[in-house]
């Protein structure tokens, strides 16, 4: 970043090419940064065009190569289970354990090993370091109330051809207190597959069927089971709590058997979460795939590919992934799609080899899917119970099947169970063929439709273009701030001998330290702001709006305190004389910090970094002291002032959130409390986005505002 410093050191000496390149970049940084930024935004809009068709990368999977074996016999058995469950629900048995017992009975009739797992719901806790640590360091168990617990039922089939080292997991979440028809049907589908798999000869991996008790949320149940599976607690708190709770119950011996009988199979190759939507589709049976886990992690693309392939080509289901519905009716997007389509036609006329045009409708659809893909990855909240598996490096997806008409019709229901069961069977058979864990295909990708994806190599270009302007501008600002210092120039030009007088005193090349200190203090403040909600949550009876207001006030207060502590008495060493172009150095350091932060975030969670960069990069690049602009009274300067104010407004996280929410969902009924709620949700899931907002975005915004209001 300091390449141009050599400019003044030895202007006549022929410089190394890399230095000359650096100098070229710095001297044209204004133009280049504008070009890079626009290119970044444009390529983002072009992304749906660049999406490739998915393909199955791992040869061993061989999806659909075998005929499905699931027959109407299994389906009728499953129908029996569904009927029993619904009748159980109609009778409204007082003890919730009845349905688990029924399922366990069905499982053991098939010859599977059955066990129960008891778990206590945990309140979501904030672990700021969760991201950097292994899952086991987060097992702090507190506040267990003995009366409320969930009970997972787990059935395991041992594979006749396996060595018990690997397993495939089926998960069916259901609410043990009130079983809906959808949940009963999902249990039915899983049961039909399960009963088939007890008989087949080709099974090489054990099958685990987890009937997760979603009384306290689907994710919590699956997460509790996984934690017991991978990180058993041998001593200490866990057992103590369990013992404590057992004392309260009469049936202690049976409970103990339940707990000790926790059964395991091998490491998990893949997990499928099966759900049946209660709502019914109008036209045809369809299948929704949910794949986003915490921090925007995705399962291996191959898993989605086999599901997609089998559902479309074998079972004739319509595949859906989440879309941003409000974008579908967007006028300008349609126009853009048409322009791109006509451009594609034009290109095809010029050279038939060029095929990049897609129909406008596809473009709009792709953009809507891509936006929602970005949004759900950026949130960092898992979109279903499959998210719990990703923390243990297990690839998992949630498959939500919805039927065409409400399934009261007996024949319809059988057909539905058959198709669902065959789909699951096919996927399991493919995964069963795997020799190693999924590794062939992509982990880092964005979906633009169920059968189209953008790999990391493509979408990183967008981000790199957007962000690459930051170091250029930082370097040029830094170089200018160092060169244009009047005292330095005078010394160099007029009497070179006396330059030595300054030599010992001015640490010319270390002038940025003062700005760096400021930036560091603001980033520290960001960390403080992040921790504040933890304390605000302890205040009882707080509406979201008041919590938000308290938070803002406390943040401002802490900022003042930090500046008072670190700003005044200790800073005399570096702050002895305020420099002329201090704001330029400050801006340069701010931009560098933003650059580092964004690059870091792009590795952790690309979607967050991309959205953050869209907001932050223009703000950082435009920031310029208002005072200087107002002084010079030109149209260009006034437009810059306007830009600065607009970008400063939109760059502030709460306003950005509210504006986007308003644009997508309409402006009525929006309050600042919404932001608090949103933040609380990503906080509760310990998403890295929360850290990003507090540690990178907010400090950067404050520093940009500081530059804009700088008294130079």
């Amino acid at each position, binding site marked *: *970043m300091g390449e141009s410093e050599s400019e003044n050191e030895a202007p006549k000496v022929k410089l190394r090419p890399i230095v000359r390149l650096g100098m070229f970049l710095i001297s044209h940084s204004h133009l280049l940064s504008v070009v890079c930024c626009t290119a970044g935004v444009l390529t983002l809009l072009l992304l749906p065009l660049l999406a490739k068709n998915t393909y199955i990368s791992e040869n061993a999977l061989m999806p659909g190569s075998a005929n499905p074996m699931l027959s109407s016999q299994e389906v009728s058995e499953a129908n029996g289970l569904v009927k029993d469950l619904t009748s159980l629900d109609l009778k409204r048995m007082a003890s919730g354990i009845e349905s688990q017992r029924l399922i366990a009975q069905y499982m053991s009739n098939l010859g599977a090993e059955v066990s129960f797992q008891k778990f206590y719901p945990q309140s979501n806790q904030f672990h700021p370091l969760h991201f950097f640590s292994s899952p086991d360091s987060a097992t702090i168990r507190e506040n267990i109330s003995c009366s409320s617990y969930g009970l997972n039922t787990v059935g395991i089939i041992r594979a006749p051809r396996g060595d018990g080292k690997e397993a495939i997991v089926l998960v069916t979440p259901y609410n043990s207190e009130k079983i809906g028809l959808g949940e009963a049907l999902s249990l039915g589908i899983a049961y039909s597959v399960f009963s088939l798999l007890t008989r087949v000869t080709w099974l090489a991996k054990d099958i685990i069927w987890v009937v997760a008790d979603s009384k306290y949320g689907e994710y919590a149940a699956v997460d509790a089971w996984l934690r017991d599976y991978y990180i058993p607690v041998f001593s200490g708190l866990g057992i103590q709590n369990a013992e404590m709770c057992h004392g309260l119950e009469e049936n202690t011996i049976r409970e103990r058997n339940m707990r000790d009988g926790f059964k395991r199979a091998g490491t998990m190759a893949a997990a499928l979460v099966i759900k049946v939507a209660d709502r019914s589709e109008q036209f045809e049976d369809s299948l929704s795939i949910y794949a986003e886990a915490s921090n925007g*992690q995705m399962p291996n693309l191959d898993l989605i590919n086999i599901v997609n392939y089998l559902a479309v080509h074998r079972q004739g289901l319509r595949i859906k992934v989440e879309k941003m519905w409000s974008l579908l009716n967007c006028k300008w997007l349609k126009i853009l799609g048409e322009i791109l389509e006509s451009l594609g036609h034009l290109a095809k006329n010029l050279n038939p080899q060029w095929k990049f045009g897609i129909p406008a409708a596809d473009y709009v659809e792709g953009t809507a899917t891509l936006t929602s893909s970005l949004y759900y990855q950026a949130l960092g909240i898992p979109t279903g119970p499959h998210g719990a598996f*990703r923390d243990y490096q297990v690839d998992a997806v949630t498959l939500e099947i919805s039927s065409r008409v409400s399934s009261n019709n007996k024949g319809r229901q059988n057909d539905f169970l058959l198709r669902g069961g065959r789909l699951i069977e096919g996927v399991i058979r493919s995964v069963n063929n795997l020799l190693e864990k999924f590794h062939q295909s992509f982990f*880092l990708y964005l979906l633009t439709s169920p059968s189209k994806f953008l790999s990391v190599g493509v979408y990183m270009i967008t981000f790199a273009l957007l962000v690459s302007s930051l170091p250029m501008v930082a370097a040029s600002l*830094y170089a200018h701030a160092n060169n244009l210092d009047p005292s330095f120039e005078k010394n160099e030009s007029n009497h070179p001998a006396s330059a*030595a007088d300054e*030599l010992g005193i001015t640490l010319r*090349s270390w002038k940025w330290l003062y700005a760096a200190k400021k930036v560091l203090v603001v980033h520290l403040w960001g960390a403080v702001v992040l921790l504040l909600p933890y304390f605000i949550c302890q205040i009882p009876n707080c509406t979201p709006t008041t919590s938000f207001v308290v938070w803002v006030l406390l943040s401002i207060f802490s900022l003042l305190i930090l500046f008072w502590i670190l700003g005044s008495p200790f800073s005399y*060493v570096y702050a002895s004389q305020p420099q002329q172009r201090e704001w330029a150095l400050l801006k340069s350091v701010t931009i560098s910090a933003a650059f580092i932060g964004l690059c870091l975030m792009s590795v952790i969670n690309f979607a967050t970094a991309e959205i953050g960069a869209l907001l932050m990069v223009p703000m950082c690049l435009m920031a310029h002291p208002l005072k200087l602009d107002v002084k010079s009274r030109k149209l260009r300067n006034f437009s810059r002032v306007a830009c600065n104010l607009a970008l400063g407004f939109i760059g502030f996280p709460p306003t950005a959130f509210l504006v986007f929410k308003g644009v997508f969902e309409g402006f009525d009924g929006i309050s600042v409390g919404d932001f608090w709620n949103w933040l609380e949700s990503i906080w509760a899931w310990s998403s890295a986005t929360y850290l990003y907002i507090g540690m990178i975005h907010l400090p950067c915004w404050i520093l940009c505002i500081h530059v804009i209001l700088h008294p130079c």
Partner: protein
Amino acid sequence: MEAKEQSKKKELWYWNWLIGSVALRVILIYFSNNLNLASRPEISTPLTSLRRLAEGYWLKQSSMSPYAGSMYHGSPLLLSLLGPLTAKRIEGQPDHILCSLVFVIADVASAMFIRATGRNLQIAYGQSLKFLDLVKLSEKSDILPSGDIAALVYLWNPFTIVACVGLSTSPVENLAIILSLYGACRRIAPLAAFGWVMATHLSLYPVILIIPMILLLGYGPDTPPRKLFLQRKYVEVGDTPSNDRCQQGEAVDQPELPYVFSWRPVIHFLFWTSLWLVYVLVLCGVSVKQYGGLWELFKRTYGFMLTVQDLSPNMGVLWYFFAEVFDFFRNFFLIVFHGNILFMILPLAIRLKHRPFFLAFVYIVISSMLKSYPSVGDSALYLGLLGLFVNELADMKFSFFLFCGYIGVSLLSPVMHNLWIWRGTGNANFYFATAMAYACLQIILVVESVSAMLNHDRKLRKLSATKVLDGKT
């Protein structure tokens, strides 16, 4: 009067920050179980990990060789010093709290020694500048003295802090190195010899520091190039004795001192070195007598370092290379990689012989870049020493770039590690990329600091030449 008050204020400021750094360490030690720093590969290498040391101690207590099972590879002396502390648990306190406190003390002691060394260097440098009549250069600036800056940089460097809190033995190793340099600077031969022997014994690589130490003891601390003094002398001889500048020259105690190699301290140093060496070897021999003797010890410690047996990822570049290389080329590349350090010793020693302390700094950077199991503790040491040359390196290029680079790499490296090990979406190349970036940063640092130092020398030469011309006319 005002200057005195100013210096008093600076003193107070220094002590405040020192106490602050100790307080921060203590707080972090209290939360060390939550931070889980001890398991980070950047902090505890197979050589410096305290957990391995505790394991070695446990083996020794159950009368087995501490080196059994390839867990512990450190010195047996450290084992008997720190081992009993690892076994002691205080109820309600984090594990290894006593060891952590020892490391805090080691850090503070290192900082104090750096400060004392810095003062010594500054006084000596000021004297030689005065002799060259470049007094203005040595005038006190409004910033802190370089020794204080270096000590504070060392104490507040996040690398030092995490190395201290993260239960790695590198604070002790750093203390030994700093002790030896301090002793050499003050020309205290026994102390210098002790420091050098201990540093070599603990981490082997400081063995190359013997060259700058001999230069330090022979010539004294850093000075401007010797040629200037000769020029100066020549001019003085030519001048009339009534010249006032000549009187100034006489004010300096020994004008010949900077460019005469005095053998006495060197001989002393060598004598003491052999004495300490024998002593340490005897102690080691006694403690490993029933476990295979000294040869086994060398094989398990220095052999382990030199043959790069542990290929678990760290922030160096060797593990990746030796994981990839074919077995029959292994010995060849081991020689090549270690030769890399040795190749650079002689040319640097010739070019920088007038600045032995800076030479020691350069050696430390190079060895911490190319050593087999580097950790952040090594970087902490050379970054602290860099602060000693704050006046000479005022014009260093790329300082801001290096700063950003260090921050970026040290944040990116844990993220990449997480991506590879815990999430499974990355692979070894992700982590190794940050290791390479880190190595590049260190190369830029060493190249730029050396060239800044040479530029500084050139500037001095120019100034002194103009002075000489002025004097003649």
